[in-house]
């Protein structure tokens, strides 16, 4: 057995020994769904435990709290977390977007200040990009940051802020120069504290009845001028760099499992233990056909990820696979969970909290929550426009 295999066994053993017991409440499946204090504390404690064991941020520099080890070890640890289905790492925005961004372009001081506490989950991070009046159109941000001595004064509002109730910092896109030549040049990027007067966080109740998102209101909130990242006017470029981390287009993330979302194999398992007309649902030809459709689609998209790395096989439209990824993946999940409900017969109508609900009502909740991905980060319809226009060269649709 080589060193990597030994390490894989070591991680697996640790995870099995230390995985937290199933709590008596239903856990979220992604960081966008952390709605209660008990869910949050459970997940934060778990992240801290994983970090202290040395299985998070393994490839981040040692001087800032990382492990200073090869990326391949972190990848193995992450794979084992996924395989053993342990809870995800809740500080997703810090670990995967803000953290790698700070390591890539932040100052020495910023790295010293933020990185270790992102890994240990002492500081939770949230993201302030979207606004109430411009969901998918980030450059239209109207939240303002006005320089006043050693401070910036923030006014405006950000919405769909995951972890907003728990966050100590926000990566914030705000307008510093309303008179700029174009709408991109007027934007700046801040690593803003959340615990200052004038920043008010209001939870948003989701379609599931749960919480998880917030709206953040800025009313003459004063933050230190040192919170500006880079220079004024560089906000758009830094936001786009953040999105490359968010979309997984570049490496550098801290690693660790980012979500516990179910896949086709979970639905296959559900079909095995559901019944239809007295027989296992998995024997029903119509259900089998549907399950294979989903498997073929999931496998096709996974293989496209592999093919995207072979230039000779994507030469005609190199952007087609990466640019359609969100559209394909999120719509696949939405339809998959929608289908999963149909396997349970009338029990499909049971909701979270019902004592007879399968897996505590996970299925209908997953279906409802899947809309957060088909809507957030640019709706599927906007995505289809983008792919149609930028990949296929179709005309923009105007009025």
């Amino acid at each position, binding site marked *: 057995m080589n060193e990597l295999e030994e390490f894989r066994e070591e991680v697996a053993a640790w995870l099995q020994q230390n995985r937290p017991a199933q709590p008596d409440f239903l856990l979220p499946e992604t960081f966008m769904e952390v709605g209660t204090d008990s869910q949050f504390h459970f997940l934060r404690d778990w992240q801290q435990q994983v970090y202290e064991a040395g299985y998070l941020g393994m490839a981040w520099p040692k001087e800032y709290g990382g492990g200073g080890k090869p990326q391949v070890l972190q990848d193995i640890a992450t794979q084992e977390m996924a395989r053993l289905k342990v809870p995800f790492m809740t500080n997703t925005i810090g670990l995967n977007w803000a953290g790698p961004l700070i390591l890539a372009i932040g100052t020495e001081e910023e790295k010293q200040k933020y990185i270790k506490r992102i890994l240990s989950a002492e500081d939770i991070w949230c993201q302030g990009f979207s606004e109430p009046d411009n969901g998918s159109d980030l450059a239209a941000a109207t939240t303002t940051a006005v320089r006043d001595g050693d401070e910036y004064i923030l006014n405006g509002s950000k919405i769909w802020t995951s972890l907003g109730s728990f966050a100590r910092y926000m990566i914030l896109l705000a307008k510093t120069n309303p008179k700029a030549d174009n709408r991109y040049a007027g934007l700046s990027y801040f690593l803003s504290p959340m615990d200052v007067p004038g920043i008010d966080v209001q939870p948003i109740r989701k379609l599931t009845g749960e919480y998880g998102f917030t709206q953040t209101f800025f009313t003459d909130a004063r933050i230190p001028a040192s919170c500006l990242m880079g220079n004024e006017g560089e906000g758009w470029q830094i936001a786009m760099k953040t999105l490359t981390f968010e979309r997984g287009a570049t490496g550098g993330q801290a690693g660790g499992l980012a979500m516990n979302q179910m896949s086709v194999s979970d639905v296959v398992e559900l079909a095995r233990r559901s019944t239809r007309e007295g027989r296992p649902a998995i024997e029903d030809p119509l259900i089998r056909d549907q399950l294979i459709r989903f498997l073929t689609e999931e496998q096709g998209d996974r293989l496209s990820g592999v093919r995207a790395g072979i230039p000779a096989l994507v030469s005609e439209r190199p952007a087609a696979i990466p640019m359609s990824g969100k559209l394909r993946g999120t719509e696949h999940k939405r339809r998959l969970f929608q289908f999963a409900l149909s396997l349970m017969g009338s029990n499909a109508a049971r909701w979270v909290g019902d004592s007879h609900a399968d897996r505590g009502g996970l299925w209908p909740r997953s279906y409802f929550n899947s809309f957060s991905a088909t809507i957030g980060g640019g709706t599927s319809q906007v995505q289809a426009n983008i792919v149609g*226009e930028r990949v296929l060269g179709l005309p923009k649709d105007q009025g």
Partner: protein
Amino acid sequence: MAQVNLKGTMTFSDEQAMLLDTATDYFRDKFPMAYVRDQMLSSSGYEQTRWDEMVALGWSGLAIPEEFGGSGLGLAAAVTIAEPMGRALAATPFLSTQLFVQGMLHGGSVDQKNAYLSQIAEGKIGTVALFEDSGGWDLTDVGVELIDGRLKGAKTFVVDAGVADWVLVSARRDGELVVVVVNKADLTGSTLEREVVIDETRRSYRLSFNGTPAAEVLGDASTALNAIRNAALLLIAAESGGGIAGVLNVVVEYLTTRTAFGKKIGGFQGLKHPTVDILIGLERTRSHVYHAASLLDAGEDAQAAIHMAKAEASDSFAFAGDRAIQFHGGFGFTWDCDAQMYLRRALWSQYSFGDAAYHRKQLAALLL
């Protein structure tokens, strides 16, 4: 199987990349749509000069091992020819001949391979006769009989039989499945009847045997049939992938030039979004195809990958062809619009060697 585990292997050599480039240019230059339409009216469906060019490029022998006169590059290399060929809707005996090659390669003795394969690499044409009147796709559902070395019964959808030098025919001898070789000289007169099929670029025949002699009996019928089927599924899927790319370009061209209600119609989301769905079907199809080809080349179990490739390719191509008609409006309803050419090819491909639902059923047996 408790857990569905599918592989993610994909390899593509520089050699394959070169073949794909060469074939893409070749079919684009030599098979423009007007030429393809002209060939629909010819008796053989293709020109000998084109086939001679393809043979000279070494394509007919790509999947034939060097010891039998080919270049030994395997079926994955044939995929790089089939895809651009399908894109142009080019009809050539390439596909039929590859199926003959696979049957002979996997079912024939060394002597038989020596006798046939090097001649194929030099330009002889082969095909396979596997289907019968039921329209079923189970290759073991065979009614043709071999009695005292002679065939009785009928085969349908024998592509390129009119020009084939040899045909591999499945039959039963005392109930046992066999695959035999029939020579061109024995396919005469009433034996050979052209079928009228949905894809007018194809030449498909019904073979009626009434004592037709079998020149050879292959050693291993079920291995031969399995190899033919897998090759057919892979190459048809590859051709369909090419077809989707071809029809997508026709659609995009129309959507970016045709004006209605004061704007280019590609601006309408009702047309734009389903066109993106065509693109997504294309990308998934190509990924499945090159994955299945990679597994086959590496000698790994490719069965599920092949079924997936055919299922995805068939449904995606049929969807693309169907929408292409619709999006051309009134012009789409005409013979002159190229959309119908692709829909016809898509339906031909869908119902060759099993449609998408059939292959999903096979997949369910393997994976669920």
